[in-house]
């Protein structure tokens, strides 16, 4: 019996010839990640059992991303726990506040690689599956156990296959494809299983779009969203990969629990309404719905390509509502600045902040007030997610966010494409 990519990665890391869905394995972990919110609990767990030295410090990545730069005294105190642990353990992979969002940084720097088994104490750690690894979110105690032993128990998930075909229409981004799937299957449509992408349409999906799609696997309940290793992956990793890697490929006779075929040429720009990413409508259906502000950022859509898309739409125009743009990492920040995107954003009246998760999780820097409505490029719109429990977040791709910023109402990007330029 053949195996899927996920099964092969799990077998390889458990030292087994083969595994099947439902098997419990003890897996060697290649890379483990914690952030300023989740790592302090892991650090406490480790101290509680008397650990003084990490056995595999080179595998641990600590990223201060959520309440960083520190929002207040409590979050500063929390950051100090991570900082002092990084010093004590002489961590090589410590990302101080202002570095950005872990799920933007790690792929960008070439740390997450095909065939690897990765865990992160952040639910969007599934993002890394875009490069062909199995990567999943876990909690702080799981992270602590992996930090202490290099291993973690896992149950082999079933694999759902998503075969994407057809040409990608203008303005359709990875965000629309994953929203389409979540809308179709629901927030628990792939509960505790894994999503594997395949099909001709993948050729038209650059790594940035794949990262967006893998990022939101968790919003369908999935543990991971994995992409095959192909020319796009190879080109992305060329000169970027920090280590040698050995990709895996699903066998032709691998067993899939479910198989979905999606013609992406039929998909329109989409928006997820409160209070769940599964609550999906077309942008055209929601056209004219007013918003009070636009947020462009988060581990879903804050990469350079996203910011270029935004700039291409708002260049020469003025925003009609408060528009906050938060580059996902220091590198994205620098590149966007060097390319002149900041000038376009500032000229349009938008605000740019240092890289942080901030507004996406209602942490700081762009928190929503009572009944306030925000069009956001982030990944979740649960009750209270971005601020007050009565605030409302609408999730969409960066092109829709840019178009909406120009009008103050939910807008299809094609509707602002021919606008007369109002600024120099």
């Amino acid at each position, binding site marked *: 019996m053949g195996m899927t990519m996920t099964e092969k990665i799990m077998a390889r890391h458990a030292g087994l010839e083969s595994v099947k869905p439902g098997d419990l394995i003890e897996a060697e972990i290649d890379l483990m990640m914690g952030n300023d919110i989740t790592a302090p*609990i892991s650090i406490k767990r480790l101290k509680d059992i008397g650990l003084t030295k990490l056995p595999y410090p080179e595998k641990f990545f600590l990223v201060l991303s959520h*309440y960083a730069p520190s929002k207040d005294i409590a979050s500063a105190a929390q950051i100090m726990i991570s900082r002092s642990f990084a010093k004590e353990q002489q961590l090589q992979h410590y990302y101080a506040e202002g570095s950005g969002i872990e799920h933007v940084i790690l792929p960008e720097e070439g740390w997450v690689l095909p065939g690897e088994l990765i865990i992160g104490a952040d639910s969007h750690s599934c993002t890394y599956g875009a490069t062909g690894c199995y990567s999943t979110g876990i*909690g702080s*105690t*799981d992270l602590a*156990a992996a930090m202490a032993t290099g291993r973690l128990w896992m149950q082999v998930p079933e694999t759902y296959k998503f075969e994407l075909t057809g040409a990608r229409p203008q303005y359709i981004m990875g965000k629309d494809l994953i929203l389409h799937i979540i809308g179709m299957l629901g927030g628990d449509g792939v509960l505790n299983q894994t999503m594997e992408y395949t099909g001709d349409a993948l050729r038209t999906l650059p790594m940035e779009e794949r990262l967006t799609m893998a990022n939101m696997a968790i919003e369908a309940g999935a543990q991971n969203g994995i992409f095959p290793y192909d020319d796009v992956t190879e080109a992305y990793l060329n000169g970027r990969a920090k280590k040698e890697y050995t990709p895996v490929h699903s066998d032709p006779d691998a067993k899939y629990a479910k198989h979905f075929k999606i013609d992406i040429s039929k998909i329109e720009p989409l928006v997820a309404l409160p209070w769940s990413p599964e609550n999906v409508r077309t942008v055209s259906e929601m056209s004219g719905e007013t918003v009070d502000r636009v947020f462009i950022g988060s581990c879903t859509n804050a990469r350079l390509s996203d910011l270029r898309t935004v700039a291409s739409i708002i260049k020469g125009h003025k925003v009609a509502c408060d528009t906050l743009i938060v580059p996902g990492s220091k590198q994205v920040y620098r590149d966007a600045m060097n390319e002149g995107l900041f000038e376009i954003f500032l000229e349009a009246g938008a605000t740019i902040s240092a890289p942080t998760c901030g507004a996406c999780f209602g942490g700081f820097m762009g928190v929503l007030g009572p009944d306030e409505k925000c069009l956001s490029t982030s990944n979740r719109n649960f009750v*209270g997610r971005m601020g007050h*429990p009565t605030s409302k977040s609408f999730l969409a791709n960066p092109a829709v966010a840019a178009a909406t910023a120009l009008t103050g109402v939910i807008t299809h990007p094609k509707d602002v494409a021919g606008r007369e330029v109002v600024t120099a």
Partner: protein
Amino acid sequence: MQFEGRTWRYGDDINTDVLIPARYLSTSDPVELAKHALEDLDPNFVKEVQVGDVIVGGKNFGCGSSREHAPIAIKEAGVSCVIASSFARIFFRNSINLGLPILECPEAVAHAEAGDVLRIDLAAGTIFNNTTGQTYQAAPFPEGVMKIIRAGGLMNSIKEEVQAREATYASAK
């Protein structure tokens, strides 16, 4: 392990953002977190919850963020057990790792109403609804999960290995 408590009945897809809103994540102190458990969904919960009470939810309980602050907050608030039709994996693992009892049992969920008194035998996986007189059987845990429960949580299950290694560091000095 046996528990008895009143039911707090919630619906499907109870996510970790409502179990503990992110605005309180600048601390990991259980006592502070417990003060805000479920406040965006049910402001009465923290005011009225009693030690031993049971949370009963529908499908996909604990979906969303990986924040362990969610099971920490409800455990510290006094909740003895969470029963749901299905659990999101990260919440499931976090709860087992922390020693917050959870049971998957769609039948018990379907017939439980707010305020029902439930008696739970965790080892047997049985849920007795005192109010209706019905008994339900929860899905058994996989063996790997039972091992962690028997050890008293995940950190306890690896403690010996870690302390043996620490001893070699000490003797090498």
